[in-house]
Protein backbone atom coordinates (compact mmCIF):
# COMPACT_ATOMS: atom_id res chain seq x y z
CA UNK A 1 0.00 0.00 0.00
CA UNK A 2 2.66 2.45 1.07
CA UNK A 3 4.68 1.56 -1.99
CA UNK A 4 1.81 2.22 -4.37
CA UNK A 5 1.04 5.59 -2.76
CA UNK A 6 4.69 6.50 -3.06
CA UNK A 7 4.75 5.36 -6.68
CA UNK A 8 1.65 7.42 -7.40
CA UNK A 9 3.29 10.43 -5.75
CA UNK A 10 6.39 9.88 -7.83
CA UNK A 11 4.27 9.80 -11.01
CA UNK A 12 2.48 12.96 -9.95
CA UNK A 13 5.77 14.70 -9.29
CA UNK A 14 7.17 13.61 -12.61
CA UNK A 15 4.06 15.03 -14.30
CA UNK A 16 4.37 18.43 -12.64
CA UNK A 17 7.19 20.66 -13.80
CA UNK A 18 9.30 21.23 -10.73
CA UNK A 19 12.21 22.84 -12.57
CA UNK A 20 14.10 25.62 -10.85
CA UNK A 21 14.34 28.77 -12.94
CA UNK A 22 16.30 31.94 -12.35
CA UNK A 23 15.53 34.55 -14.99
CA UNK A 24 17.76 37.59 -15.38
CA UNK A 25 18.49 37.78 -11.65
CA UNK A 26 20.29 40.99 -10.80
CA UNK A 27 21.40 42.15 -7.38
CA UNK A 28 22.84 45.63 -7.04
CA UNK A 29 24.33 46.85 -3.76
CA UNK A 30 24.50 50.55 -3.00
CA UNK A 31 23.33 51.52 -6.47
CA UNK A 32 26.57 50.54 -8.20
CA UNK A 33 27.98 47.15 -7.17
CA UNK A 34 26.42 44.50 -9.40
CA UNK A 35 26.95 41.34 -7.34
CA UNK A 36 24.71 39.41 -9.76
CA UNK A 37 24.20 40.67 -13.27
CA UNK A 38 21.29 39.20 -15.27
CA UNK A 39 21.90 35.58 -14.30
CA UNK A 40 19.59 33.14 -16.08
CA UNK A 41 19.74 29.41 -15.48
CA UNK A 42 17.42 26.48 -14.99
CA UNK A 43 17.86 23.16 -13.23
CA UNK A 44 15.61 20.13 -13.61
CA UNK A 45 14.66 17.78 -10.79
CA UNK A 46 17.22 14.99 -10.76
CA UNK A 47 20.11 17.15 -11.89
CA UNK A 48 23.29 17.87 -9.99
CA UNK A 49 24.22 21.36 -11.10
CA UNK A 50 27.60 22.92 -10.36
CA UNK A 51 28.02 26.59 -9.56
CA UNK A 52 31.69 27.45 -10.07
CA UNK A 53 33.54 30.70 -9.81
CA UNK A 54 36.27 32.56 -7.96
CA UNK A 55 35.69 34.16 -4.56
CA UNK A 56 33.56 37.26 -4.83
CA UNK A 57 32.10 36.10 -8.16
CA UNK A 58 28.56 36.31 -6.77
CA UNK A 59 27.77 32.64 -6.06
CA UNK A 60 26.75 33.21 -2.44
CA UNK A 61 24.69 36.26 -3.37
CA UNK A 62 22.79 34.12 -5.88
CA UNK A 63 22.25 31.35 -3.32
CA UNK A 64 20.99 33.81 -0.69
CA UNK A 65 18.41 35.09 -3.16
CA UNK A 66 17.25 31.55 -3.89
CA UNK A 67 16.68 30.74 -0.20
CA UNK A 68 14.90 34.04 0.48
CA UNK A 69 17.57 35.79 2.56
CA UNK A 70 18.12 38.46 -0.10
CA UNK A 71 15.71 40.00 -2.57
CA UNK A 72 16.86 40.45 -6.17
CA UNK A 73 16.99 44.03 -7.43
CA UNK A 74 15.29 42.63 -10.53
CA UNK A 75 14.59 39.26 -12.12
CA UNK A 76 12.61 36.17 -11.21
CA UNK A 77 13.33 33.03 -9.24
CA UNK A 78 10.73 30.29 -9.60
CA UNK A 79 10.44 26.71 -8.45
CA UNK A 80 7.57 24.78 -10.00
CA UNK A 81 4.46 26.84 -9.34
CA UNK A 82 6.13 28.95 -6.62
CA UNK A 83 7.56 32.45 -6.97
CA UNK A 84 10.44 32.31 -4.49
CA UNK A 85 11.06 36.07 -4.59
CA UNK A 86 7.50 36.92 -3.62
CA UNK A 87 7.21 34.06 -1.13
CA UNK A 88 10.39 33.71 0.98
CA UNK A 89 8.56 31.38 3.37
CA UNK A 90 8.01 28.95 0.48
CA UNK A 91 11.66 29.45 -0.50
CA UNK A 92 12.84 28.34 2.95
CA UNK A 93 10.55 25.31 2.94
CA UNK A 94 11.38 24.21 -0.59
CA UNK A 95 15.14 24.78 -0.40
CA UNK A 96 17.68 23.16 1.94
CA UNK A 97 20.97 24.96 2.40
CA UNK A 98 24.33 23.68 3.62
CA UNK A 99 26.56 26.74 4.02
CA UNK A 100 30.32 26.58 3.77
CA UNK A 101 30.67 27.82 7.36
CA UNK A 102 30.58 25.34 10.26
CA UNK A 103 27.14 24.35 11.55
CA UNK A 104 26.16 25.69 15.00
CA UNK A 105 25.99 22.28 16.67
CA UNK A 106 28.63 22.46 19.39
CA UNK A 107 26.18 21.58 22.14
CA UNK A 108 24.11 19.07 20.16
CA UNK A 109 24.58 15.34 19.97
CA UNK A 110 25.00 14.19 16.37
CA UNK A 111 21.75 12.23 16.08
CA UNK A 112 19.86 14.90 17.99
CA UNK A 113 21.05 17.66 15.63
CA UNK A 114 20.00 15.65 12.58
CA UNK A 115 16.60 14.65 13.97
CA UNK A 116 15.79 18.11 15.31
CA UNK A 117 16.55 19.72 11.95
CA UNK A 118 14.35 17.10 10.28
CA UNK A 119 11.52 18.00 12.65
CA UNK A 120 12.05 21.72 11.97
CA UNK A 121 11.96 20.91 8.25
CA UNK A 122 8.54 19.33 8.71
CA UNK A 123 9.22 15.59 8.86
CA UNK A 124 7.20 13.48 11.28
CA UNK A 125 8.99 11.95 14.24
CA UNK A 126 9.16 8.29 13.17
CA UNK A 127 10.10 8.97 9.57
CA UNK A 128 12.77 11.48 10.57
CA UNK A 129 14.26 9.02 13.07
CA UNK A 130 14.42 6.26 10.44
CA UNK A 131 15.91 8.54 7.83
CA UNK A 132 18.49 9.94 10.30
CA UNK A 133 19.52 6.37 11.11
CA UNK A 134 19.87 5.54 7.42
CA UNK A 135 22.03 8.60 6.76
CA UNK A 136 24.23 7.95 9.80
CA UNK A 137 24.80 4.41 8.52
CA UNK A 138 25.24 5.38 4.89
CA UNK A 139 27.84 8.04 5.72
CA UNK A 140 29.55 5.76 8.24
CA UNK A 141 29.35 8.20 11.16
CA UNK A 142 27.58 5.83 13.61
CA UNK A 143 30.63 5.92 15.86
CA UNK A 144 29.83 9.56 16.72
CA UNK A 145 26.04 9.21 16.89
CA UNK A 146 25.90 10.37 20.53
CA UNK A 147 28.97 12.62 20.49
CA UNK A 148 28.60 16.34 21.13
CA UNK A 149 29.26 18.56 18.12
CA UNK A 150 32.17 20.37 19.76
CA UNK A 151 34.14 17.10 19.95
CA UNK A 152 33.84 16.31 16.23
CA UNK A 153 36.59 16.75 13.65
CA UNK A 154 35.92 19.15 10.79
CA UNK A 155 35.18 16.37 8.30
CA UNK A 156 32.69 14.54 10.51
CA UNK A 157 31.03 17.84 11.40
CA UNK A 158 30.66 18.48 7.68
CA UNK A 159 28.92 15.10 7.20
CA UNK A 160 26.61 15.85 10.14
CA UNK A 161 25.79 19.19 8.50
CA UNK A 162 24.99 17.40 5.25
CA UNK A 163 22.73 14.98 7.14
CA UNK A 164 20.95 17.86 8.91
CA UNK A 165 20.26 19.58 5.62
CA UNK A 166 19.12 16.46 3.74
CA UNK A 167 17.37 14.41 6.43
CA UNK A 168 14.15 16.03 5.23
CA UNK A 169 15.23 17.79 2.06
CA UNK A 170 13.50 20.49 0.08
CA UNK A 171 13.07 20.29 -3.69
CA UNK A 172 16.24 22.30 -4.14
CA UNK A 173 19.27 21.23 -2.12
CA UNK A 174 22.14 23.73 -2.10
CA UNK A 175 25.47 22.38 -0.94
CA UNK A 176 28.34 24.84 -0.52
CA UNK A 177 31.64 22.91 -0.57
CA UNK A 178 30.06 19.79 0.99
CA UNK A 179 33.22 17.69 0.82
CA UNK A 180 35.56 20.14 2.61
CA UNK A 181 37.69 18.31 5.21
CA UNK A 182 35.93 14.99 4.50
CA UNK A 183 38.23 11.95 4.23
CA UNK A 184 38.45 10.21 0.81
CA UNK A 185 36.44 7.12 1.84
CA UNK A 186 33.52 9.03 3.28
CA UNK A 187 33.77 11.54 0.45
CA UNK A 188 32.74 8.68 -1.87
CA UNK A 189 29.81 7.83 0.44
CA UNK A 190 28.79 11.47 0.44
CA UNK A 191 28.74 11.61 -3.37
CA UNK A 192 26.51 8.51 -3.40
CA UNK A 193 24.04 10.29 -1.14
CA UNK A 194 24.13 13.44 -3.27
CA UNK A 195 23.39 11.36 -6.37
CA UNK A 196 20.54 9.58 -4.53
CA UNK A 197 18.99 12.92 -3.58
CA UNK A 198 18.91 13.84 -7.25
CA UNK A 199 17.45 10.47 -8.22
CA UNK A 200 14.73 11.08 -5.67
CA UNK A 201 13.71 14.24 -7.53
CA UNK A 202 15.72 17.01 -5.87
CA UNK A 203 17.53 19.62 -7.91
CA UNK A 204 20.98 19.71 -6.32
CA UNK A 205 23.17 22.81 -6.51
CA UNK A 206 26.82 22.20 -5.84
CA UNK A 207 28.69 25.41 -5.07
CA UNK A 208 32.40 24.77 -5.26
CA UNK A 209 35.93 25.84 -6.07
CA UNK A 210 36.91 22.24 -6.59
CA UNK A 211 36.79 21.97 -10.35
CA UNK A 212 38.28 18.47 -10.48
CA UNK A 213 35.62 17.12 -8.17
CA UNK A 214 32.86 19.00 -9.97
CA UNK A 215 33.98 17.57 -13.31
CA UNK A 216 33.36 14.05 -12.02
CA UNK A 217 30.11 14.69 -10.18
CA UNK A 218 27.91 17.30 -11.84
CA UNK A 219 25.53 16.82 -14.77
CA UNK A 220 25.80 20.46 -15.82
CA UNK A 221 27.53 23.49 -14.47
CA UNK A 222 27.67 27.23 -14.69
CA UNK A 223 30.78 29.36 -14.35
CA UNK A 224 30.15 32.70 -12.67
CA UNK A 225 32.68 35.51 -12.74
CA UNK A 226 32.28 39.13 -11.63
CA UNK A 227 28.56 38.60 -11.13
CA UNK A 228 27.88 37.25 -14.62
CA UNK A 229 27.19 33.74 -15.84
CA UNK A 230 29.98 33.37 -18.38
CA UNK A 231 29.56 29.73 -19.40
CA UNK A 232 27.07 26.94 -18.91
CA UNK A 233 26.85 23.36 -20.08
CA UNK A 234 27.87 19.78 -19.39
CA UNK A 235 31.51 19.28 -18.43
CA UNK A 236 32.25 17.72 -21.82
CA UNK A 237 30.46 20.43 -23.81
CA UNK A 238 32.50 23.07 -21.97
CA UNK A 239 35.67 21.15 -22.73
CA UNK A 240 34.76 20.85 -26.42
CA UNK A 241 36.46 24.14 -27.22
CA UNK A 242 39.69 22.78 -25.76
CA UNK A 243 39.56 19.63 -27.91
CA UNK A 244 42.77 19.21 -29.87
CA UNK A 245 44.70 20.97 -27.11
CA UNK A 246 46.99 19.75 -24.36
CA UNK A 247 47.74 21.18 -20.95
CA UNK A 248 51.38 22.06 -20.35
CA UNK A 249 52.34 22.71 -16.75
CA UNK A 250 55.87 23.84 -15.96
CA UNK A 251 57.08 23.95 -12.37
CA UNK A 252 59.54 26.85 -12.22
CA UNK A 253 62.38 27.16 -9.75
CA UNK A 254 61.05 29.09 -6.72
CA UNK A 255 61.46 32.85 -7.11
CA UNK A 256 62.15 32.49 -10.85
CA UNK A 257 60.57 35.09 -13.13
CA UNK A 258 58.10 33.87 -15.77
CA UNK A 259 60.24 33.04 -18.82
CA UNK A 260 59.44 34.54 -22.23
CA UNK A 261 56.76 32.43 -23.93
CA UNK A 262 56.86 31.10 -27.47
CA UNK A 263 54.03 32.33 -29.74
CA UNK A 264 52.31 28.92 -29.99
CA UNK A 265 51.58 28.83 -26.24
CA UNK A 266 48.07 29.83 -25.04
CA UNK A 267 47.31 32.47 -22.39
CA UNK A 268 49.24 31.28 -19.31
CA UNK A 269 48.27 31.43 -15.64
CA UNK A 270 50.88 31.45 -12.92
CA UNK A 271 50.03 30.03 -9.50
CA UNK A 272 52.94 30.10 -7.09
CA UNK A 273 55.79 28.68 -9.14
CA UNK A 274 53.50 26.71 -11.47
CA UNK A 275 53.04 28.00 -14.98
CA UNK A 276 49.92 26.50 -16.58
CA UNK A 277 49.07 26.87 -20.23
CA UNK A 278 47.50 25.03 -23.17
CA UNK A 279 49.15 24.16 -26.46
CA UNK A 280 47.91 22.66 -29.72
CA UNK A 281 48.33 18.86 -29.97
CA UNK A 282 50.47 19.47 -33.07
CA UNK A 283 52.88 21.49 -30.92
CA UNK A 284 53.41 18.70 -28.36
CA UNK A 285 57.00 18.04 -29.44
CA UNK A 286 57.81 21.78 -29.37
CA UNK A 287 56.28 22.03 -25.92
CA UNK A 288 58.38 19.19 -24.58
CA UNK A 289 61.61 20.56 -25.96
CA UNK A 290 60.80 24.10 -24.70
CA UNK A 291 60.09 22.77 -21.19
CA UNK A 292 63.21 20.57 -21.27
CA UNK A 293 65.31 23.59 -22.30
CA UNK A 294 63.89 25.56 -19.34
CA UNK A 295 64.95 22.75 -17.01
CA UNK A 296 68.35 22.66 -18.67
CA UNK A 297 68.72 26.42 -18.17
CA UNK A 298 67.92 26.02 -14.46
CA UNK A 299 64.68 28.02 -14.74
CA UNK A 300 62.31 25.08 -14.23
CA UNK A 301 62.41 21.91 -12.16
CA UNK A 302 59.91 19.70 -13.98
CA UNK A 303 56.99 19.74 -16.37
CA UNK A 304 53.83 17.75 -17.15
CA UNK A 305 51.97 17.44 -20.46
CA UNK A 306 48.48 15.94 -20.44
CA UNK A 307 44.89 16.07 -21.64
CA UNK A 308 43.01 19.28 -20.92
CA UNK A 309 40.53 19.16 -18.05
CA UNK A 310 37.64 21.28 -16.90
CA UNK A 311 40.24 23.14 -14.84
CA UNK A 312 41.76 24.48 -18.07
CA UNK A 313 38.36 25.66 -19.23
CA UNK A 314 37.91 27.35 -15.86
CA UNK A 315 41.33 29.01 -16.17
CA UNK A 316 40.53 30.21 -19.68
CA UNK A 317 37.17 31.64 -18.58
CA UNK A 318 38.05 33.23 -15.24
CA UNK A 319 41.80 33.81 -15.38
CA UNK A 320 42.07 31.91 -12.07
CA UNK A 321 42.92 28.37 -11.12
CA UNK A 322 40.56 26.78 -8.63
CA UNK A 323 43.46 26.40 -6.18
CA UNK A 324 44.23 30.09 -5.78
CA UNK A 325 40.91 30.85 -4.13
CA UNK A 326 41.85 30.38 -0.51
Amino acid at each position, binding site marked *: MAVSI*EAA*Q*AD*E*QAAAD*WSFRAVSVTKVYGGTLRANDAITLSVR*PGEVYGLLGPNGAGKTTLV*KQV*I*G*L*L*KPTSGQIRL*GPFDLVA*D*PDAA*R*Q*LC*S*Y*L*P*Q*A*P*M*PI*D*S*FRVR*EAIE*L*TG*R*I*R*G*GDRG*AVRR*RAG*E*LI*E*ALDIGEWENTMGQRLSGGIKRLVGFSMV*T*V*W*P*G*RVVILDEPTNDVDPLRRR*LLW*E*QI*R*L*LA*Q*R*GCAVFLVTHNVMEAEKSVDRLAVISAGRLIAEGTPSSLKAEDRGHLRLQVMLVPEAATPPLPPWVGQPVRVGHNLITTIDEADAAHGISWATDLIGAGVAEEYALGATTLEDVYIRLTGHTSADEG
Partner: protein
Amino acid sequence: MTACAGPLPPVTVRRGVAYWAGSYRALTRWHLASLRMWLMLLTVVQIMTGAGFVLGFALFFDHIPASAALFVSTGVPVINLVVVGLIMGPQLVAQQKLQQSYDFVRSLPVPQTSAAAAWYTVCLLAGLPAVVVSLLIAEARYGISFAVSPAIVPAVLLVAFTGTIIGYGLGHAVPNPMVTTLVTELLIFAAFGFTPILYPSWQLPGWLATLNWWFPFGHMAVIVRAGLTSGMATGIASSYLIVAAWGVIGVALSAWALGRRA
Protein backbone atom coordinates in the same frame (compact mmCIF):
# COMPACT_ATOMS: atom_id res chain seq x y z
CA MET B 1 25.14 1.96 -3.27
CA THR B 2 23.52 2.01 0.15
CA ALA B 3 19.73 1.89 0.12
CA CYS B 4 18.99 5.26 1.65
CA ALA B 5 16.57 6.99 -0.61
CA GLY B 6 14.88 9.26 1.91
CA PRO B 7 11.57 11.02 1.54
CA LEU B 8 10.26 12.37 -1.74
CA PRO B 9 10.79 16.11 -1.95
CA PRO B 10 7.75 18.20 -0.93
CA VAL B 11 5.07 19.23 -3.43
CA THR B 12 3.27 21.63 -1.13
CA VAL B 13 4.19 24.40 1.25
CA ARG B 14 3.07 24.13 4.86
CA ARG B 15 0.92 26.95 6.24
CA GLY B 16 -1.45 27.47 9.16
CA VAL B 17 -1.66 26.62 12.84
CA ALA B 18 -0.12 23.12 12.76
CA TYR B 19 2.93 24.46 10.88
CA TRP B 20 3.27 27.31 13.39
CA ALA B 21 2.90 25.06 16.44
CA GLY B 22 5.23 22.35 15.11
CA SER B 23 7.90 24.95 14.32
CA TYR B 24 7.47 26.53 17.75
CA ARG B 25 7.97 23.18 19.53
CA ALA B 26 10.94 22.14 17.43
CA LEU B 27 12.67 25.54 17.71
CA THR B 28 12.14 25.74 21.47
CA ARG B 29 13.85 22.35 21.72
CA TRP B 30 16.59 23.62 19.38
CA HIS B 31 17.29 26.66 21.60
CA LEU B 32 17.23 24.62 24.81
CA ALA B 33 19.65 22.11 23.29
CA SER B 34 21.97 24.78 21.93
CA LEU B 35 22.09 26.52 25.34
CA ARG B 36 22.29 23.32 27.37
CA MET B 37 25.95 23.62 28.25
CA TRP B 38 25.44 26.90 30.01
CA LEU B 39 21.73 27.20 30.79
CA MET B 40 22.49 25.92 34.29
CA LEU B 41 25.36 28.36 34.68
CA LEU B 42 23.22 31.17 33.31
CA THR B 43 20.50 30.45 35.87
CA VAL B 44 23.06 30.44 38.68
CA VAL B 45 24.57 33.73 37.51
CA GLN B 46 21.08 35.23 37.26
CA ILE B 47 20.28 34.13 40.80
CA MET B 48 23.58 35.57 42.03
CA THR B 49 22.89 38.85 40.22
CA GLY B 50 19.45 39.05 41.85
CA ALA B 51 20.82 38.14 45.27
CA GLY B 52 23.66 40.63 44.79
CA PHE B 53 21.27 43.53 44.15
CA VAL B 54 18.88 42.51 46.94
CA LEU B 55 21.60 42.05 49.55
CA GLY B 56 24.11 44.60 48.24
CA PHE B 57 21.86 47.64 48.49
CA ALA B 58 21.50 47.11 52.25
CA LEU B 59 25.24 47.78 52.57
CA PHE B 60 24.72 51.43 51.60
CA PHE B 61 22.87 51.96 54.88
CA ASP B 62 23.45 51.30 58.58
CA HIS B 63 19.82 50.34 58.72
CA ILE B 64 18.14 50.13 55.32
CA PRO B 65 14.73 51.86 55.42
CA ALA B 66 11.87 49.44 54.88
CA SER B 67 10.66 51.43 51.85
CA ALA B 68 14.11 51.24 50.20
CA ALA B 69 14.32 47.50 50.85
CA LEU B 70 10.89 47.03 49.29
CA PHE B 71 11.81 49.18 46.27
CA VAL B 72 14.97 47.24 45.56
CA SER B 73 13.35 43.86 46.17
CA THR B 74 10.48 44.58 43.80
CA GLY B 75 12.78 46.05 41.13
CA VAL B 76 15.22 43.15 40.94
CA PRO B 77 12.72 40.81 39.17
CA VAL B 78 12.69 43.24 36.23
CA ILE B 79 16.46 42.88 35.85
CA ASN B 80 16.16 39.08 36.08
CA LEU B 81 13.41 39.06 33.45
CA VAL B 82 15.02 41.27 30.81
CA VAL B 83 18.70 40.42 31.11
CA VAL B 84 18.57 37.22 29.01
CA GLY B 85 16.36 38.57 26.23
CA LEU B 86 17.64 42.12 26.06
CA ILE B 87 21.36 41.60 26.65
CA MET B 88 22.22 37.97 25.90
CA GLY B 89 19.78 37.58 23.01
CA PRO B 90 21.45 40.15 20.73
CA GLN B 91 24.88 38.87 21.78
CA LEU B 92 23.94 35.33 20.71
CA VAL B 93 22.78 36.60 17.32
CA ALA B 94 26.02 38.59 17.03
CA GLN B 95 27.95 35.40 17.79
CA GLN B 96 26.06 33.53 15.05
CA LYS B 97 26.98 36.32 12.64
CA LEU B 98 30.65 36.14 13.68
CA GLN B 99 30.73 32.35 13.32
CA GLN B 100 28.86 32.62 10.00
CA SER B 101 26.11 30.23 11.10
CA TYR B 102 23.56 33.05 10.90
CA ASP B 103 22.57 32.25 7.30
CA PHE B 104 21.93 28.60 8.12
CA VAL B 105 19.73 29.52 11.09
CA ARG B 106 17.87 32.07 8.96
CA SER B 107 17.37 29.48 6.21
CA LEU B 108 15.43 27.11 8.49
CA PRO B 109 11.81 26.86 7.33
CA VAL B 110 9.86 28.31 10.25
CA PRO B 111 7.37 31.16 10.51
CA GLN B 112 9.15 34.27 11.84
CA THR B 113 6.55 34.71 14.59
CA SER B 114 6.98 31.15 15.85
CA ALA B 115 10.77 31.59 15.89
CA ALA B 116 10.35 34.74 18.00
CA ALA B 117 7.83 33.00 20.27
CA ALA B 118 10.21 30.07 20.84
CA TRP B 119 13.02 32.46 21.78
CA TYR B 120 10.65 34.36 24.11
CA THR B 121 9.73 31.11 25.86
CA VAL B 122 13.39 30.26 26.42
CA CYS B 123 14.20 33.74 27.79
CA LEU B 124 11.21 33.56 30.12
CA LEU B 125 12.24 30.12 31.37
CA ALA B 126 15.80 31.34 31.91
CA GLY B 127 14.62 34.35 33.96
CA LEU B 128 11.88 32.90 36.16
CA PRO B 129 13.92 30.83 38.65
CA ALA B 130 16.02 33.89 39.52
CA VAL B 131 12.86 35.98 40.03
CA VAL B 132 11.52 33.49 42.56
CA VAL B 133 14.84 33.10 44.39
CA SER B 134 15.43 36.87 44.53
CA LEU B 135 12.01 37.37 46.11
CA LEU B 136 12.62 34.58 48.63
CA ILE B 137 15.98 36.10 49.59
CA ALA B 138 14.31 39.51 50.05
CA GLU B 139 11.69 37.95 52.29
CA ALA B 140 14.34 36.26 54.40
CA ARG B 141 16.71 39.25 54.60
CA TYR B 142 14.24 42.10 55.10
CA GLY B 143 11.25 40.25 56.52
CA ILE B 144 9.12 41.56 53.68
CA SER B 145 5.89 39.76 53.01
CA PHE B 146 4.90 40.44 49.42
CA ALA B 147 1.23 40.89 48.59
CA VAL B 148 1.38 38.75 45.44
CA SER B 149 -1.69 39.23 43.27
CA PRO B 150 -2.74 37.67 39.94
CA ALA B 151 -1.58 40.93 38.32
CA ILE B 152 1.96 39.58 38.61
CA VAL B 153 1.28 37.11 35.77
CA PRO B 154 0.56 39.63 32.97
CA ALA B 155 3.27 41.90 34.40
CA VAL B 156 5.95 39.19 34.24
CA LEU B 157 4.82 38.03 30.79
CA LEU B 158 4.78 41.56 29.38
CA VAL B 159 8.09 42.67 30.93
CA ALA B 160 9.87 39.57 29.62
CA PHE B 161 8.19 39.98 26.22
CA THR B 162 9.14 43.61 25.75
CA GLY B 163 12.73 43.04 26.92
CA THR B 164 13.11 39.98 24.71
CA ILE B 165 11.56 41.39 21.56
CA ILE B 166 13.60 44.62 21.71
CA GLY B 167 16.75 42.53 22.09
CA TYR B 168 15.61 40.24 19.28
CA GLY B 169 15.03 43.19 16.96
CA LEU B 170 18.38 44.76 17.89
CA GLY B 171 20.29 41.53 17.33
CA HIS B 172 18.84 41.07 13.85
CA ALA B 173 18.79 44.75 12.85
CA VAL B 174 22.41 45.64 13.67
CA PRO B 175 24.59 44.12 10.93
CA ASN B 176 27.93 44.46 12.71
CA PRO B 177 28.42 42.08 15.69
CA MET B 178 30.89 44.48 17.35
CA VAL B 179 28.30 47.24 17.29
CA THR B 180 25.76 44.86 18.84
CA THR B 181 28.16 44.19 21.72
CA LEU B 182 28.69 47.92 22.27
CA VAL B 183 24.95 48.62 22.16
CA THR B 184 24.16 45.92 24.72
CA GLU B 185 26.90 47.20 27.03
CA LEU B 186 25.47 50.69 26.73
CA LEU B 187 22.04 49.21 27.56
CA ILE B 188 23.34 47.56 30.75
CA PHE B 189 24.96 50.81 31.81
CA ALA B 190 21.98 53.03 30.97
CA ALA B 191 19.11 50.73 31.89
CA PHE B 192 20.43 49.45 35.18
CA GLY B 193 22.26 52.58 36.33
CA PHE B 194 20.11 55.47 35.25
CA THR B 195 16.55 54.20 35.13
CA PRO B 196 14.18 54.04 38.10
CA ILE B 197 14.05 50.25 38.45
CA LEU B 198 15.65 49.84 41.89
CA TYR B 199 14.92 53.35 43.20
CA PRO B 200 12.00 55.75 42.80
CA SER B 201 12.03 58.15 39.86
CA TRP B 202 11.85 61.23 42.16
CA GLN B 203 15.42 60.47 43.19
CA LEU B 204 16.54 61.34 39.65
CA PRO B 205 17.18 64.88 38.39
CA GLY B 206 13.98 66.25 36.87
CA TRP B 207 15.12 66.08 33.26
CA LEU B 208 16.28 62.46 33.63
CA ALA B 209 13.00 61.49 35.29
CA THR B 210 11.11 63.09 32.39
CA LEU B 211 13.31 61.32 29.87
CA ASN B 212 12.80 58.04 31.67
CA TRP B 213 9.05 58.44 31.47
CA TRP B 214 9.37 57.72 27.75
CA PHE B 215 11.47 54.61 28.24
CA PRO B 216 10.12 51.25 29.38
CA PHE B 217 12.40 50.27 32.28
CA GLY B 218 10.91 52.34 35.08
CA HIS B 219 7.44 51.35 33.92
CA MET B 220 8.41 47.69 33.93
CA ALA B 221 9.28 48.09 37.62
CA VAL B 222 5.94 49.81 38.26
CA ILE B 223 3.85 46.98 36.83
CA VAL B 224 5.90 44.26 38.53
CA ARG B 225 5.67 46.18 41.81
CA ALA B 226 1.89 46.43 41.33
CA GLY B 227 1.71 42.63 41.25
CA LEU B 228 3.90 42.18 44.36
CA THR B 229 2.65 44.90 46.69
CA SER B 230 -0.60 46.62 47.44
CA GLY B 231 -0.89 50.38 47.13
CA MET B 232 2.81 51.02 46.45
CA ALA B 233 2.69 51.46 42.67
CA THR B 234 0.87 54.35 40.99
CA GLY B 235 0.11 55.13 37.37
CA ILE B 236 -0.17 51.43 36.64
CA ALA B 237 -2.39 51.75 33.56
CA SER B 238 -0.08 54.20 31.82
CA SER B 239 2.92 52.04 32.74
CA TYR B 240 1.30 49.01 31.11
CA LEU B 241 0.61 51.12 28.06
CA ILE B 242 4.20 52.32 27.73
CA VAL B 243 5.74 48.88 28.26
CA ALA B 244 3.29 47.45 25.70
CA ALA B 245 4.11 50.29 23.28
CA TRP B 246 7.81 49.38 23.53
CA GLY B 247 6.81 45.79 22.89
CA VAL B 248 5.13 46.94 19.69
CA ILE B 249 8.26 48.91 18.75
CA GLY B 250 10.28 45.72 19.33
CA VAL B 251 7.91 43.73 17.10
CA ALA B 252 8.14 46.36 14.36
CA LEU B 253 11.95 46.46 14.59
CA SER B 254 12.15 42.64 14.42
CA ALA B 255 9.71 42.46 11.51
CA TRP B 256 11.69 45.10 9.63
CA ALA B 257 15.06 43.49 10.38
CA LEU B 258 13.96 39.98 9.41
CA GLY B 259 11.88 41.04 6.43
CA ARG B 260 14.18 43.51 4.69
CA ARG B 261 16.22 40.99 2.58
CA ALA B 262 18.53 43.80 1.50
